[in-house]
């Protein structure tokens, strides 16, 4: 099944149709975008902690690159808005989604279902090569007149349309590229899972990670197009002068807006946006749940507790996530009836999420846990997701949401889900599958430095935000709340002015962001040095895992599997204390070194009482 002829460098590494190469391309590109997003935030946090002070070290560079908005190396309010909008956009659409879906989905789904490649390899390549220009257009928009988009990652009109910058147009066009890219990716993943499962791999034998990617693909497939529709309409508003989102009687800076027909609705955009926006939240978090499940099963050496509940829950989340979107819009003044509906669906969707968390927690119970680096990240995911989930409950209820929605509380809440949540799961995945992709282990010591440093910093960044938000600090303020603080001269004696303690947290967060950035350096070094000079793996299955991706040569060649695959059992057959099966040559190749194993791989024939492997008829 391997490629019979050598491909040139360009066909092999740049315009490759191999899902593994494309997965790694996605990984490197999206990690780069994460780094860019972090850098933007670092500069924003400087501005918040030290309003109006020139940015140290890079201030001059900023001014020469961006001109007026970064005059004297300071971050102006406009630039702050640009950075804020682009931080969100880059982190979500160019960082995390391509990471969990493009990188992990691409690399692992075909391997875990025993396929040689994706169902549509060329379309897979096209998907990546639509994502790249999308990202580049987004980055170029920093340098166009007026700078990048400034209306937040949600791009609410009329604000988005009346801000005089072409950056918003770039944002919309880039989004069209990204949406098309994820559309092709999701078609590919779904078709691969449905059509290319090897014989015997029934739906209930799929690794949970495949299930999460499968549901994620459906969310991307069905939820992104309404945003695409919204982007087309907003482009029409910008380029053809229509008024889809521009209401009658719009007044801009005290002047009635002229040259508009009016008659549109800003709420229409919010509906179209959040119809994507909420499923998108689950796009960000489902696949990481899948990664964590794989890592936990492997490192507790136990079957996952409640596999069927997990599958049921992930499907329930998939359906429910399509009917909760307007809980992002409680503050628009929607009617009580509609608000009640969305409050109800939102509280209902927390049930399957809690079921998943509970299953994963129970899976830890009584396990002899190997505290490997991936496992540490996976465990941190569980607690971070717990904090993020619980702090989300007040946002589900309009009564408390109205008070908290525009505060730092909500920023703390969703970052707990996405930063120490999703991104930790991604790190877990990288450390876990790195040996398969490269044939070498990542360095454990550097991994520990990376993990503990990141864990402390993440909590130092996001927990204070919850406190600030509850104290009444609004989000999106380019001065970090200085104008509302007790320290501001005009606020002397004002009840409810932000106290000194709350304001000091800005400094804490700022330093913690810098330290978080610093703690990523060991990871970056570890990643590249281990890829070329790390400790070589001792077998094709170094973690002694059960799923199919470990049954390939290391690293997997084009076409993946060298033998015919057939699946005989559920994905997590660990803790088998009474193996009756004699050691066969296939078992030795699983890293057993002749020892009795506590696990059975999915493609290992079921042992019969007489010791002969039975060729079992595969249910389809």
């Amino acid at each position, binding site marked *: 099944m391997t490629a019979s002829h050598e491909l040139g460098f360009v066909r092999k590494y740049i315009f490759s149709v191999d899902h593994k190469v494309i997965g790694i391309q996605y990984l490197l590109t999206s990690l780069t975008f994460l780094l860019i997003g972090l850098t933007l935030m670092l500069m924003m946090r400087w501005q918040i902690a030290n309003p109006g002070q020139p940015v140290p070290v890079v201030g001059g560079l900023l001014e020469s690159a961006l001109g007026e908005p970064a005059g004297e190396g300071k971050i102006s309010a406009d630039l702050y808005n640009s950075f804020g909008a682009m931080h969100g956009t880059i982190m979500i659409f160019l960082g995390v989604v391509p990471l969990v879906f493009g990188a992990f989905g691409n690399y692992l789904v075909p391997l875990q279902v025993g396929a040689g490649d994706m169902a549509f390899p060329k379309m897979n390549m096209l998907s990546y090569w639509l994502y790249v220009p999308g990202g580049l257009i987004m980055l170029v928009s920093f340098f166009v007149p007026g700078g990048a988009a400034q209306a937040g990652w949600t791009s609410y009109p009329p604000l988005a349309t009346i801000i005089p910058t072409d950056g918003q147009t770039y944002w919309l066009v880039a989004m069209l590229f990204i949406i098309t890219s994820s559309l092709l990716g999701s078609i590919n993943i779904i078709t691969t899972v449905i059509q290319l499962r090897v014989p015997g791999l029934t739906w209930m034998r799929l690794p949970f990670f495949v299930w999460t990617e499968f549901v994620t693909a459906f969310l991307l497939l069905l939820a992104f197009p*309404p945003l695409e529709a919204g982007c087309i309409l907003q482009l029409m508003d910008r380029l*053809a002068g229509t008024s889809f989102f521009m209401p009658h009687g719009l007044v801009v800076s005290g002047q009635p807006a002229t040259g508009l027909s009016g008659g549109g609705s800003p709420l229409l955009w919010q509906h179209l946006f959040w119809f994507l926006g909420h499923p998108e939240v689950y796009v960000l978090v489902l696949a990481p749940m899948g990664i964590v499940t794989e890592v936990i099963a492997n490192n507790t050496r136990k079957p996952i507790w409640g596999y069927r509940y997990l599958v049921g829950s992930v499907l329930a989340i998939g359906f429910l996530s399509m009917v909760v979107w307007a809980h992002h819009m409680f503050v628009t003044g929607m009617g009580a009836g509609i608000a009640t509906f969305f409050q109800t669906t939102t509280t209902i969707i927390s049930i399957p999420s809690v079921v998943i968390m509970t299953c994963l927690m129970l899976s830890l119970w009584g396990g002899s846990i190997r505290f490997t680096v991936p496992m540490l990240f996976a465990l941190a995911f569980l607690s971070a997701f717990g904090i993020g989930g619980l702090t989300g409950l007040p946002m589900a209820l309009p009564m408390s949401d109205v008070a908290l929605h525009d505060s730092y509380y909500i920023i703390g809440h969703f970052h707990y889900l996405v930063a120490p949540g999703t991104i930790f799961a991604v790190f877990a995945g990288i450390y876990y599958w790195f040996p398969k992709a490269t044939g070498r282990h990542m360095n454990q010591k550097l991994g520990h430095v990376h993990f503990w440093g990141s864990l402390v910093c993440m909590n130092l960044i996001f927990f204070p935000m919850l406190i600030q938000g509850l104290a009444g600090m609004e989000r999106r303020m380019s001065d970090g709340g200085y104008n509302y603080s007790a320290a501001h001269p005009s606020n002397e004696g004002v009840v409810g002015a932000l106290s000194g303690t709350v304001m000091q947290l800005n400094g804490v967060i700022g330093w913690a962001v810098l330290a978080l950035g610093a703690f990523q350096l060991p990871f970056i070094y570890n990643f590249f040095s281990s890829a070329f000079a790390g400790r070589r793996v001792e077998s094709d299955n170094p973690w002694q895992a059960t799923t199919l991706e470990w049954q390939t040569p290391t690293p997997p060649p084009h076409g993946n599997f060298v033998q015919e695959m057939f699946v005989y059992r559920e994905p997590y057959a660990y803790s088998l204390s009474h193996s009756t099966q004699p050691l066969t040559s296939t078992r030795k190749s699983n890293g057993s070194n002749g020892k009795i194993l506590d696990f059975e791989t999915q493609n290992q024939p079921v042992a019969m009482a007489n010791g002969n492997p039975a060729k079992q008829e595969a249910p389809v």
Partner: protein
Amino acid sequence: MKIPYTSEIREDTGLYNAKIGMWLFLASEVMLFGGLFSAYVFLRIGAREGEWPHGLLNIPIGAFNTLVLITSSLTVALSWTTLKAGDFQRYRRLQIVTLVCAALFLGIKSWEYYDKFSHYEIWLNKPLTAKEYPQLAGHSTEADLPITSVVGHIEGVGPFETLASLQEAGMSTVKIHPDAFHYRLTALQQAERRKVEKATGVRAVHAETDEHANVSIDVSHIARMSAFVPKHGTFFATYFTLTGLHALHVVGGALAFAFILWPGARMWRDDPKRYTNSVECVGLFWHFVDLVWIFLFPILYLL
């Protein structure tokens, strides 16, 4: 590296890969047009009273175009069955009919667009009444109600002109041929007007039949002027966006058929099964595009 089920059918799913892929793509297309149709409903429900235009689109032409598209869907279905039966020549003739239908549809659509682009609405500073100008009878329900905007063709003015461009050209008056009915009259009001005309025998003079029936309007009395372009209002914004996106889909489908028909025809010799499948997949897409139009026609032309 060979991918299984590219043209042969997987037993448990009963499908080949590309067919699943196409159905998934269509699911996402349903959500795309679903989003746009929802936008239409949202904007129309939210429109002020009397603001949503009625009767501005040419229904017979739209109906004819619907027929053209349905015919093309029929020839696509027939061409696929003849291809399955192995008759390549007949398939090719049928597909040429499909492509002719697609071109006809797009041609008619462009003509409709052009007609709208050169059709104007003029909002007036100084209202007129149907009493002074009987040719504006179709613009209001009562003869002495003030008429604040006039709709029609402007003599000697092509498409896409604006108030600014007319002023720049040094025009001091415009001669507009008013339409028989103003869109702000609801369908019901228009019917009532027709009834009154019939009863009294007094007809709003039809612009096309009497060239003296135009209304001369001083440019200084024009508050705002717009051709029927997307910018005119939310109705035309919706109309042009939806039909424009639909037309792009027609172009895409036609290009795909043309590619399969000529440069891609070599595959018929090498792998006839896969060739037939590709016709089936693009055919699915074509039927979907047809279906979108079947929804677009009533919501834009009739309702």
